[in-house]
């Protein structure tokens, strides 16, 4: 144990170097900075926005439209006594992103039900999605005004009828059923909420697998490159202890790094859509709970176990790939297959339903150990405990096989003679 701890301490010290600390600190600061910037932009876009308006009509209807926009948190900068072309030029020189032109005779045209169109001119001063939000709100306000105007007309002409029933004679109520639970909601909304709830799982998995695998593969490859491996293999410490120390150190530092990345990522995401997320959460929590689509303590434990096993599998794979690598550079290229193995189930989980794909594809997906953490959350929701525990057992078996293989490689000549060189074969005899 003393020897193992000695090696573990050295491995951790090797991994936690100045470069790592600086890179983590920089990432954290960068995420935070971008998050703050985004938050300010969102606040700007959702706050009071200035739009220019040229009212060539001056009727009650046109004034009602402008009043409606003011109540929707727009500051109206009125352009008086100018032609449309002049107004376009004036607004171009100002700061407002939108010019609204209400044509002459607009009020009268409404009465005749031959409305003159209102023109909107959006000034694209940037191409961000948030920047275009103003024009979407204007369209929303106009649509609301359309509703009010048509409702008023219908009430006037057909006072005994409800305008809403007249405009939408067929009404629907959406219900979602999950196992034996039912709630009023649309299936697409629930699917969206579930996917947003489990959005962090693949991100966390990708982060941890990438950072830990890179660390362990580099740890082995660097021993080879720096010619320290032969000495290490002849000191009195068990080969399994060498493997465990390297994996444990990489897992520990990888988890910590991923945790720090996640804090930064959370700060970044919080900056982008904090208010929207909060609003959505408060509205949807009740429905999700009614449908049983939430994790209790055992759910989180199962999810944690799946992530942990996936990390162990990745570390064991990286350890073997590290043995195959000749040096640090080739070790980096060898990470690619591992990354693909994580990315394939991630993308498949986004675009395909495991339950409806063909049998060979299903077997292919389930054979990839990293698929199981992606499937755990939906299987938990759907109560497919057989698939969950089968997946956990499968990952445990894959991990055991890989560790036994890695230990065998470390205990035999292969640690020194096994090399994967693209397009070349080499045997070393001295």
């Amino acid at each position, binding site marked *: 144990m*003393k*020897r193992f701890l*000695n090696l573990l301490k*050295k491995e951790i*010290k*090797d991994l936690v*170097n100045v470069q790592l600390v600086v890179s983590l600190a920089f990432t954290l600061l960068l995420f935070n900075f971008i998050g703050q910037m985004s938050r300010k932009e969102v606040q700007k876009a959702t706050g009071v926005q200035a739009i220019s308006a040229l009212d060539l009509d001056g009727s009650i209807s046109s004034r009602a439209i402008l009043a409606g926009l003011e109540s929707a948190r727009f500051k109206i900068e009125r352009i008086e006594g100018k032609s449309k072309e002049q107004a376009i030029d004036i607004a171009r020189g100002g700061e407002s992103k939108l010019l609204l032109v209400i044509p002459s005779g607009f009020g009268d045209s409404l009465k005749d039900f031959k409305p003159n169109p209102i023109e909107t001119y959006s000034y694209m001063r940037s191409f961000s999605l948030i920047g275009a939000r103003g024009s979407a709100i204007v369209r929303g306000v106009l649509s609301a005004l359309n509703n009010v105007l048509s409702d008023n007309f219908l009430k006037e002409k057909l006072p005994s009828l409800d305008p809403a029933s007249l405009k939408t004679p067929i009404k629907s109520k959406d219900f979602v059923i999950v196992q034996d639970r039912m709630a009023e909601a649309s299936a697409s909304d629930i699917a969206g909420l579930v996917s947003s709830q489990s959005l962090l799982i693949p991100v966390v998995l990708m982060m941890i697998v990438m950072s830990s695998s890179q660390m362990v593969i580099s740890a082995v490859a660097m021993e080879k490159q*720096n*010619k*320290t491996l*032969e*000495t290490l*293999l*002849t*000191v*009195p*410490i*068990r080969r399994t202890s060498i493997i465990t120390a390297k994996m444990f150190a990489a897992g520990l530092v990888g988890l910590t790094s991923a945790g720090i990345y996640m804090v930064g990522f959370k700060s970044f995401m919080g900056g982008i859509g904090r208010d929207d997320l909060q609003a959505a959460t408060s509205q949807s929590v009740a429905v999700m709970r009614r449908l049983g689509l939430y994790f209790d303590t055992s759910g989180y434990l199962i999810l944690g176990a799946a992530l942990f096993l996936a990390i162990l599998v990745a570390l064991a794979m990286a350890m073997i790939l590290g043995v195959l690598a000749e040096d640090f550079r080739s070790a980096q290229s060898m990470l690619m297959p591992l990354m693909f193995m994580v990315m394939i189930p991630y993308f498949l989980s986004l675009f395909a339903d495991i339950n409806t794909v063909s049998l060979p594809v299903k077997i292919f997906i389930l054979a990839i150990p990293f698929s199981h953490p992606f499937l755990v959350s939906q299987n938990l929701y759907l109560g497919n405990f057989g698939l969950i525990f089968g997946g956990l057992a499968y990952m445990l078996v894959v991990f055991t096989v890989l560790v036994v293989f890695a230990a065998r490689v470390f205990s*035999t*000549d292969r640690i*020194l*003679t096994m090399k994967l060189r693209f397009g070349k074969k080499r*045997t*070393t*005899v*001295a």
Partner: protein
Amino acid sequence: MDNVLTVRGLKKSYGPQVALAGIDFEVLPGEVFALIGPNGAGKTTTLRIIATLLTPTGGEITFLNHDLRKEPDLVRERISYLPEEAGAYKNMKGLDYLHFMAKFYARTPEEEKAFVDRAVEITELGDRLKTKVGTYSKGMTRKILLARALMTKPVLAILDEPTSGLDVLNALEVREIVRRYVKEGTSVLLSSHNMLEIEFLSDRVALIDKGRILDSGTPGELKEKHQAKNMEEVFRSSLR
């Protein structure tokens, strides 16, 4: 007196390629036994097998009456190996590296300190040991590696080209250090291309080529047998 190391019929193949075709030798207590031969003769393969890095294809190796193949962990406690192209952890300070390596062998903190003190004395690097190994010259690195190999006073030190790449003065120092530790009871199995070094250090020499031992004996015996003035002539004569 029992042999420290007994090698009988040692064979090693990499697929169809035969590296060792069955070699026999033994190392006695307090003796320097040298393996000489051309490149690719099988010297390093032999040393790596005895250092428990490679598994032999055939033959027997006994270290202090223990079967090396069956008890590699026990053997590693009592030997030390200095590979030809060894490196030290560049991010560690010299002193930290010595402590790190000493911890694998020491049973108590006092023993660890004694090992490191001995290594510090061998290196003669003084305050440079407080700087990172990555800043050392080749000679300094080789010295710290040799110190690492000898600080535990192993029963058998396996040294592959111990003075490889060193200048004359550093090489002389290294040879003196090896001699001193042999006097204190450590046996040495070494390989070298430097015939002067072989003559200076070795008690007995085995000449190896194509995985077989061609000749062996003390440097004096070999020179007499081959009617040679020095070991270089013995080398040339044996390979003809």
